[in-house]
Structures are given as structure tokens and as C-alpha cells.
């Protein structure tokens, strides 16, 4: 119904080349100072004492153990939060019930809470003097200052990511597709696997990547409950801290460089998925436009 329009020749505010290049220049300068140089300096510091030193510090037993523990934490956290995120997103976008908005706000709490407070919450509850902790202590189960505690707080701090990515998308897509599938006789699981999942696939992967990045890198909450036992309850970020405070700067930055690489990989994957997600969102809104036109 509207005639051909082309954005490239349209007049827009701020198109004056002086304004444009001034703003771009300022942005690039600030980004370089605030983001790019720090990123580069991680690797520069890591290789400060040469490549041999870099690799030997990565191959130390403590480092290898920290890598293993970090991977374990991520491997346990991600699937749990994936299931929870999908369940929550399904409940709040496909049904109306009292307290729906409240539930969505509650889900945001881990984002708002200081990680140290998060760690403390778990320590109070499951620590040896805590409500549940004292009972566990009597039964010889140790959660805090051990890897289960680390996993628990990591689940806490990363639980909103998946749901947060899914909810806007599922809200936008509406429930018509699924309703159509129900009318066609699909069972609950068929419905989810064949109709919902293909639609939310990229948002789901996106949520997983964010969950993973945060799970691997969480520091504050983990440092409260880990007890900081080198070679036992140190995750990679905690090891970075320990090495840094021991004046082993090169080793600290070597460990940090692994985390930085993972961060870069996350950004890369994220950019790729965003591009896919944009496409599926666009298809969706085009579809919507067509039906309303």
C-alpha cells in the first residue's frame, strides 16, 4: 500500500558530514581507550615474560584444575538454566495467570543483586550454621566451600539469561502457530519440538551462550562460597585473582587471556546469532505486516 521508499537518499537528522564524522570519530576514540586497548593489554601482559613462560604457566597443575572445575560448573549450570528458562518463558508468554508480571520481575532479581550478596545468601542457608546447612552437616554433606556450592551460586546468578532472551521473541511470535498445531492434533512434546523450538532456536542458543559466558566468568558470588582452596575450589577467575595477588602478574594474565579468548569467542558467536535472530524477527514482523495490511 505504500509506495517505494528508499532510505539511503532520505533526509535524516544528523546527516551533515561534519556532525557525522565528528560523532563517529569521538565514538571510535572513546571505544579504543575504554575497550580496545584494555583488551589488547591483557594479551600483552600475558606474554610479557615470553611465550614459553605463558604456556608453562597455563600447564601448571593448579591452572589445569581450575580450567576443569570451571568447565564442570558451566556444564552443570547451562542445562539446568536452559530447562528453567524455557519453562518460565513458556508459562509467562503462553498463559495468563495472576502474578504473571510479578514472576517476571522476580526472575530479574539475580541481575539486580550484587554477586557478593548472592554468595552470602547461599552461605547463610547452606553453610554449616545455616538452616539447611546444619542439617546437611549432621549428615556429612558439605556444599559450601566445595564445588556444589560454586555450581549453586552460579545457577543463581545466571538463571535469568535464557528466559530473558526467549520472552520478548515468544511474545512477539504469539501463540497462533501453537494453537494451530493443537487443532491439528499435536501432543505437547510434538508441539514444542516441531513448532515452538524451530521458532526460538536462535534465541535459545543466544541465551545459552550468555549463560555460559557468565557461568565461566562469575567471580563475586563464587569467591564468597568457594573458600579459595588452590587446586581444589578455585575456578579460573578465582585463580586469576590469587595469582595476581601473589604478584605473579604474568601467570594471572595468562589465565586471564584464556577467559578473554572465551569472551571474544562469545562476542563472535553472539554477533552471528544476532544476525540470524534479526532475520527471523524480521520475517516474523513482515508476516505480521502482511496479515494486517
Amino acid at each position: 500500500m505504500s509506495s517505494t521508499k528508499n532510505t539511503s537518499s532520505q533526509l535524516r537528522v544528523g546527516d551533515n558530514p561534519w556532525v557525522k564524522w565528528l560523532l563517529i570519530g569521538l565514538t571510535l576514540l572513546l571505544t579504543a581507550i575504554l575497550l580496545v586497548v584494555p583488551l589488547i593489554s591483557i594479551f600483552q601482559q600475558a606474554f610479557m615474560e615470553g611465550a614459553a613462560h605463558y604456556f608453562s604457566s597455563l600447564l601448571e597443575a593448579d591452572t589445569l584444575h581450575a580450567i576443569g572445575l570451571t568447565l564442570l560448573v558451566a556444564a552443570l549450570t547451562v542445562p539446568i538454566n536452559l530447562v528453567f528458562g524455557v519453562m518460565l518463558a513458556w508459562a509467562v508468554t503462553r498463559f495468563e495467570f495472576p502474578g504473571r508480571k510479578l514472576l517476571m520481575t522476580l526472575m530479574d532479581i539475580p541481575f539486580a543483586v550484587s554477586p557478593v550478596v548472592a554468595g552470602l545468601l547461599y552461605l547463610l542457608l547452606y553453610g554449616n550454621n545455616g538452616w539447611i546447612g546444619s542439617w546437611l552437616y549432621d549428615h556429612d554433606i558439605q556444599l559450601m566451600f566445595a564445588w556444589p556450592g560454586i555450581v549453586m551460586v552460579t545457577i543463581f546468578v545466571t538463571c535469568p539469561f535464557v528466559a530473558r532472551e526467549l520472552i520478548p521473541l515468544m511474545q512477539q511470535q504469539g501463540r497462533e502457530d501453537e494453537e494451530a498445531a493443537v487443532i491439528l492434533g499435536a501432543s505437547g512434546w510434538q508441539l514444542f519440538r516441531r513448532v515452538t523450538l524451530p521458532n526460538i532456536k536462535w534465541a535459545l542458543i543466544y541465551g545459552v551462550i550468555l549463560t555460559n559466558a557468565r557461568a565461566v566468568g562469575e567471580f563475586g558470588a563464587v569467591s564468597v562460597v568457594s573458600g579459595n582452596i588452590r587446586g581444589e575450589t578455585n575456578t579460573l577467575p578465582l585463580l586469576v585473582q590469587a595469582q595476581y595477588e601473589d604478584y605473579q602478574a604474568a601467570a594471572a594474565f595468562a589465565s586471564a587471556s584464556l577467559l578473554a579468548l572465551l569472551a571474544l569467542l562469545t562476542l563472535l558467536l553472539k554477533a552471528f546469532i544476532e544476525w540470524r535472530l534479526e532475520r527471523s524477527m524480521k520475517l516474523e514482523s513482515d508476516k505480521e505486516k502482511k496479515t494486517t495490511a
Partner: protein
Amino acid sequence: MATHLSAADTRPRHKRVLPGLSLSLGTSLLFISLILLLPMAGLVMQSVDMGWDRYWQVITDERVVASYKVTLWAAALASIFNGFFGLLLAWVLVRYDFPGRRILDALVDLPFALPTAVAGITLATLYAQNGWYGEILESLGIKVAYTPWGIVLAMAFTSIPFVVRTVQPVLEELSPEEEEAGMTLGASDWSVFRRVIFPALWPALMTGIALSFTRSLGEFGAVIFIAGNMPYVSEITSLMIFVSLQEFDFPAASAIASVVLMASLILLFAINIWQARYLRRLHGRS
């Protein structure tokens, strides 16, 4: 029958068609109760246990109060800085095409992807007296590392993406027609920005700043390395909790944590309510 009703885009309040309400809602509620509400209840119990006098004494301790001030000021400055920088970034990313735009767009999320401890030691090293930036600043007579300014810097770094990512989509969706309408009515670029574009971005910008502020209040990993952690000067509240814990003073840690928790919850609810209200005004009934 179901499709008829939903085609009218009103949420049908009749019998549910889709399966899985009890499963999904049940799991979600159980999970939230176990992961979130139970530990929070634990904190409340712990704080109640200690008695009002002791509680009040802990949370109004001079050193703790100093830490509130430092944290609030630093978070405020960091989020205001991010308001400007984030708006600039969002504008440049949405409005202009230039080589490297996609890389810049990806790079914006670095502070979220980079573990805070890594950010902390990196910033501390860069801004230390013999670091790349520290040397330059030193020659200008400015000290950042191990001062409250270091706290502002670390908070600003870790919360850069918030404003960008809240403003960006709004800016993208802004219809060019409102801008054009402004121009046909004779307004200059600056007036159109100030009177048409900026008011449309304002709620998103405020939300971004508020999120950035909330995150900064709780930031720990990035801050402690660069703050210097001098009592009364550059100690943040999260650190006060951590210190109490290391002294095994659980009640004190809980008391301070309850203050922090309350502040973040109030902020979170305020942001959500404010957002909902603003959306309703713009789009009619939400």
C-alpha cells in the same frame, strides 16, 4: 474457535488451548522458590535474629556509611557517563554506516562477556603508576588507580552495554516520518533531535542508566582490584560484606547485605513500574 479470537489480537480469556501450564508454571515456581526465595528468606531470618539495635549499629557504622557514600557516588557518576557514552554509541551504530561498524557493535558487549576479575586486573594494571594510561595520567598529575576514581572507572567499564542496548532498538524503530514531520515544520536538526527524537529515547535512556546504576552498585570483581580498598576512602559496600564474611561475622555481613539487597530490589521494581507506565502512555492501553 481459538484462532478466531486470537486473530483479533485480544488475549483470549476463555478455556486454555495450549498444553503445559501446570508443568511449566510448576517448574518455574519451584525453581524460583528454591533458588531465589528460600535463600532470601534465610537472609531475612538472619537479620531478624540479630535484633534491631545491633542491626542498626552495624548498618550505620561509620566505615560502612562511608562505603555507601563511595558506592553511590561512584555508581551515579559511572552511570551518568554511560548515559552519554551509550547514547553516542547507540546513535552512531544505528544512524551511520562506516567501516568497522559491525565490529564496533560486537565490541560493545565486551564488558558483559569479559569476566569481571579479568577486567579488574586489566584496568588496575593499565591505570597503575607504571601502566600505559597511568604513566600519561601521572604526568598530568591525575591519579586514578587506588582512588575513588578507579571505582568509577571500573563501574563504568562493566556497565557500558546497558544504555547502548536499551537505546539502540528504540532508535532503530523510530519512524523516520516523525523526524520528517519535524523538518517540514521548519525545525533545525538540533531542534528535531531535542524535541522529537530525544523525548522518544528518554524512557529507554533512563532505563539503561538505571540498569547501569543498579549493576554498578553491586559490582565487585572489577572494582576491588583497582579501588585500593582504603577504609573510609575507597571501600565499596560489597567489599564490606566480603570483609565481614572473612572475619566470620555472618550477622554483620547479613545486615549490610540486607541493605544492599533492599536497595537493588527497590530499584528493580521502580524500573519495571516506571517502564510499564511510560509504555502505556505512548501506546495507549498496553
